[in-house]
């Protein structure tokens, strides 16, 4: 599903050249649930933005679902983002002046689906996240957990092959975080590939595999329980 080979991302200014990712190689198989851990500033988010085709890589290769993403123009990258990827952000990133229904509608609009098809998909995904009764509520009228469910619904409505989640429970209390995590696990059980960036070892432990990034490089790969244990034991895992 996702294959990165010797991938680097460099941010250049007139004075400084900073490597956010350096020679990073990673492969995620279809249907996997992978957690990405690492300290702040380690390059986790940069990894996610490149995986999500939100930024160009500086060197190396990135294949997404069999497509070599190097040199693609904006139109093709946008279409791939729209059709193959779903994003869940830490701060939900709902559009405040659109109601729940219209927030979920955004990716479908860019796909050019008919009104009836959009309506069918939105109703189905609202049902799935348990927010059918809130379709015409605005984000400000909802709790954090509900907003994150809307964000997940928006990510799922396009039926993406890969769901990218950046600290999806970071802004939620324990109970709400548990609900969101159960939803992500359910999505994974239904066949989606999930890559989740997190600081939380307990959440990472629920993934099938954990990738530990530090200084822009993958320091460790392994089954989730072992690596999380190792991270905790050796001070690799840090909490924000």
């Amino acid at each position, binding site marked *: 599903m996702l294959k990165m080979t010797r991938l680097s991302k460099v941010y250049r200014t007139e004075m400084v050249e900073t490597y956010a990712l350096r020679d990073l190689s990673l492969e995620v198989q279809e249907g996997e649930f992978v957690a990405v851990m690492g300290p702040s500033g380690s390059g986790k988010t940069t990894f996610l933005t490149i995986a999500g085709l939100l930024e160009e890589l500086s060197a190396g290769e990135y294949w997404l679902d069999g497509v070599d993403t190097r040199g693609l123009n904006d139109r093709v990258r946008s279409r791939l983002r729209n059709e193959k990827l779903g994003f869940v*952000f830490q701060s939900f*990133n709902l559009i405040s002046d659109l109601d729940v229904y219209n927030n979920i509608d955004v*990716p479908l609009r860019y796909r050019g689906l008919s009104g009836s098809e959009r309506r069918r998909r939105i109703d189905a995904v609202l049902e799935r996240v348990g927010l059918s009764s809130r379709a015409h509520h605005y984000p400000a009228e909802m709790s954090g957990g509900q907003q994150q469910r809307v964000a997940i619904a928006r990510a799922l409505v396009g039926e993406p092959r890969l769901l990218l989640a950046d600290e999806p429970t970071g802004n939620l209390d324990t109970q709400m975080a548990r609900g969101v995590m159960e939803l992500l696990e359910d999505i994974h059980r239904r066949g989606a590939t999930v890559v989740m960036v997190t600081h939380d070892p307990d959440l990472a432990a629920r993934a099938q595999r954990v990738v530990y990034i530090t200084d822009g490089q993958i320091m460790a790969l392994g089954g989730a329980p072992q690596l999380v244990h190792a991270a905790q034991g050796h001070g690799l895992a840090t909490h924000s």
Partner: protein
Amino acid sequence: MFGYYFNLALRSLRRNVVLTALMISAIGIGIGASMTMLTVFRAASGDPIPGKSAQLFVPQIDNFGPQSKMPIETDDLLPPVVTYFDADEWMRSHPAVRQAAMYPISITITPSDPTRNPIRADARATYGDFFSMFNVPFQFGGPWSRVEDSSHAAVIVLTRELNHVLFGGANSVGKNLLVGDKTYRVIGVMDEWRPTPRFYDVDGATFSGQDQLFLPFTRAIEEQMPTVARFNCDQTGPGKGWQGLLASNCVWIRFWVELPSARDVASYQSFLHNYAAEQLQRGRFNWRARVGLRNVRQWLSYNHVVPPTVETLTSVSFALLLVCILNAIGLMLAKFMARTGVISIRRALGASRLAIFGQFMLEAAVIGLAGGLVGLGLIQLGLVSCRLVLERDLSVLARLHGSDVLIAMTLALVATLLAGLYPTWRAMQVPSALQLKTQ
């Protein structure tokens, strides 16, 4: 996507009403000011006879010579009018397809109804070619022919308005009217015809003046009807009596010719040069007279028909529009860049840069159309002010026509789209990873 973007544009405009009102006001004020003056300018400088203005010409001849101290107002000091002698000679030679000498007169009409008072009317003595040459439309009857020109016939053509006053708008062809103390037969009634500016006579009320009645030039000369236009004479003066005026060197007759092709124009120019040379030979002039031949557009420009005040005010108003557009650019930039977060979310969800461009340009278009509507209101206000401020002859031009509304709305749309280009370009450049990087 058009409907979706339109809906987003309306939501966006409702989001910050004050900023939206400022943007719309900036565009509206710019459009209002510029279109007010452009409306007057277009009316003053428009083509009064589209499709034919390049085929109608005014011939001129330097009647007074290089040593003349005559107060001629043209840039090259050629008199804009000619002597009766020249007009008569040119009419007899008839080198053009159509030609007409003319002069304005003022007449008194006595209605057949004895209970009604006599009416003063502005009239024009001319030749029958005047009507076909200037494409004058007729409601009833038609113009007089060359036969009637030759026979000095007592016939008249009325304008629709005067026919309405005299005959209640009924078909008056064949009816008699007492003009001065002579009876004239109505031969035709013109339909609505008001070329603006009145190109065939740019002396006096060029924009507001209108001839109400036309009669044969030959008849007016025979009846010794005096001109109401200014006329210039050299030191020899106008001579004694009517025949003295006709034989004098005074210039007072306007002359128009129709020359449909470049060949006709070249041929007429040769005619004029030969005519000038002939006058020298015959001893009428002791100088080789310069000649001129100008079409309608050249004639209006040559006579400075568009007042410099209108030209200056139009330029100033467009400078104001530019300032308003610059303001709108700043306001749009502020509005669009306040939405970088939403832009990056949309980009992450699959919006291409082109989609962002479409969305924001449509928003600019909505602002432009709203600004155009505000501008239309301000144009009406501006034209009312113009009617109060401008001199009477020009004030009649301060009227809004359908084409002005179309131009105003198009200008508002184009100006706002241009103003929206830079803010939209900036919006397109918002990094799609912004929301991930800043959360």
